[in-house]
């Protein structure tokens, strides 16, 4: 029987250089749900994204992550990607000399191979490139260049979402995709995400600002504070944070050391 969750994170602990960053984090996401994670700088949001995608900066010391019933933590980064996990990087990497076209072609065909499909024909690949470029209104000049090389901050973020459109993930982690985008680009990118999403695509949106959530409307909002999710609620929680900051969360968290979990069960 299929589990009802797409991803299930249980009591996850992770350290960087023996310093515990994630201190028992739990989160469950069903197919098609959108979860927003907010939280102060340094609270561990990107570390969570790294742990979920298999970047070895952080070491997992406890807890489990199950993705479509499989043990995610055992998989290599590329296996996770082929299973359908996608991270829009907070800081996309520039890769001089590797062309966007070659990069995307290789990525797509590796994914197709994993699913037992033939490689895309050149014309079909180009058709998809064209279609997805339009979706995020990314300039053709950019996709003719090397991966992220010399892209502006906003262009890099658009390029992340373009890749998401090409790869059509099951679970997208958007780590501050809104930062660095101007007002128009924010709308384009956010609407792009909405268009890419299928009914069963899940999204975890990491953001500091309510603005993005006006477009990508979350089902749940969580506050990550000092390595734990200390509060969860609906979209109204994001509005409250925008208005009042994290001070009140800090006070609450210090009052009770207990772990917060989603209260929907």
């Amino acid at each position, binding site marked *: 029987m299929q589990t009802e969750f797409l991803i299930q994170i249980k009591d996850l602990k992770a350290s960087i250089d023996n310093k515990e960053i994630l201190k028992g984090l739990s989160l469950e996401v069903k197919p098609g749900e959108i979860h927003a994670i907010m939280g102060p700088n340094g609270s561990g949001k990107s570390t969570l994204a790294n742990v979920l995608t298999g970047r070895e900066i952080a070491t997992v010391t406890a807890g489990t992550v199950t993705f479509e019933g499989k043990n995610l933590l055992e998989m290599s980064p590329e296996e996770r990607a082929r299973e359908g996990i996608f991270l829009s990087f907070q800081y996309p*990497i520039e890769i001089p000399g590797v062309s966007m076209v070659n990069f995307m072609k290789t990525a797509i065909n590796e994914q197709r191979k994993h699913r037992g499909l033939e490689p895309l024909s050149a014309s079909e690949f180009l058709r998809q490139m064209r279609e997805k470029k339009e979706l995020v209104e990314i300039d053709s000049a950019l996709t003719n260049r090397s991966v992220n090389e010399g892209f502006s901050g906003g262009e890099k973020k658009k390029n992340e979402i373009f890749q998401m459109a090409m790869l059509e993930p099951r679970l997208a982690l958007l780590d501050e995709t809104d930062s660095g985008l101007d007002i128009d680009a924010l709308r384009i990118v956010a609407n792009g995400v909405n268009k890419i999403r299928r009914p069963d695509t899940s999204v975890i949106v990491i953001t500091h600002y309510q603005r993005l959530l006006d477009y990508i409307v979350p089902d749940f909002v969580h506050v990550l504070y000092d390595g734990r999710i200390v509060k969860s609620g609906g979209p109204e929680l994001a509005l409250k944070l925008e208005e009042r900051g994290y001070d009140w969360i800090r006070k609450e968290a210090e009052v009770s050391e207990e772990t917060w979990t989603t209260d929907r069960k």
Partner: protein
Amino acid sequence: MDYRPEVINRLTELWETRDEGLLKGSPDIYNRYRAEAFSEFLRLGIPDRKNEAYKYTNLEKSFGYKYEKYFSPVPGDFREAEKFHCEVQDLDVWNMVLLNGFLPKGDEGLAMLPGGLWVGSMKAAARQFPSLVEKHYNKYAQNENDGLVPLNTALASDGLFLYAPKNTVYTKPIQIVNLLHSTQDIFAQDRNLLVVEDGAQMSLLVCDHAISPQHYLTNTVTEVYVGRNARFEIIRVQNQHNDSGKITHTFIHQERDSFASSNNITLHGGLVRNATWHRLNGENAETHSYGLFLADKHQHIANFVKVDHAAPNCNSTQLFKGVLDDNASGAFNGRIMVHKDAQKTNAFQSSNSIIMSDTARMDTKPQLEIYADDVKCSHGATVGQLDENALFYLRSRGIDAKEAKLMLMFGFAHDVIKNIPIEALRERIDNLVLQRLRGELSRCASCAIQCN
């Protein structure tokens, strides 16, 4: 024990019997320099690591070997050579094959290509253009503490001559395929002269191959004159084997408003040392020195560059990259010299290497000598591993680790390849590099001879 006295004895014997032997019938224009050059060679010797310019390069592996044949043609093999097709084929080029440093039809006259460009052997050039050869021959080569240059001047018996008279523009690249092919172990020397007169243009592709498994050593000296407002490009693709040594000395002399670029792509070779000298002799000239090498096993690849800014308002760049695996070693020695009057000089140098194993090593040594005060000079060198963040980025999109590494190495290498001025060639070389990185490139790939 020093291997060199024995080698020098052997070469001295050759020198003493030269007139009956390998230099029989050699033109006087070349002969008049030989005696002095040979004593210069004896004075300087075979460079060792005490020589700054060879600090990281040990020549013993190639020079210590006892070859069966020195500096002379092996005529019987020319028929074989004609059959050879270089990897970089199907290009719209004018093509010529040299065997062990000699032209197949060495003693025929020079050929004139459409557009008025002359090509042929040095011997023929001395007969047909004596005053031109006299004006340029041995005028740009510098010994500067390197005995291998005078060794070539003393004992090289022939080589390639290319001449683009004033304002001639030959739009196709000229491809020279240098084959090493014989049943004997050979030490070959070729001496080449390229003259690109005022307003003329020439682009030259030189492919170095060793197509039979013997031991080879080649010591090549090439002098290039680039006149006012002239343009010259040379691309070398070196694909030899682990028992072959290749030493090149290329001297590019540029007059005002000229442009030159040199691109050394070393895919394979046991011991390779490319020395490229650029002299900016007139104002407003531009010169570029590029290099890429891929080394593994016990290969050693060295690049030596000297850019001599002798006139004001000139620009130069040096960009060298290498990927080293296994026990391979590499060296980059890049010199920039800015003379007192060479104001408003722009000189840029960069050397970047990627080390793929714990036992590979790379040494870099930039040397800047600046005597002018209004100068922009920059240099940088990096030796490192593949960028972990970039590797993760590729993997996070589903690309497996091995393929991702390959893509990064290729991307790293492409930075040099992209400067090759001929598009079709750029693509071919991209391909060769990719094959080499995948371990699929052998010296026998698409060779028509099929010697084994």
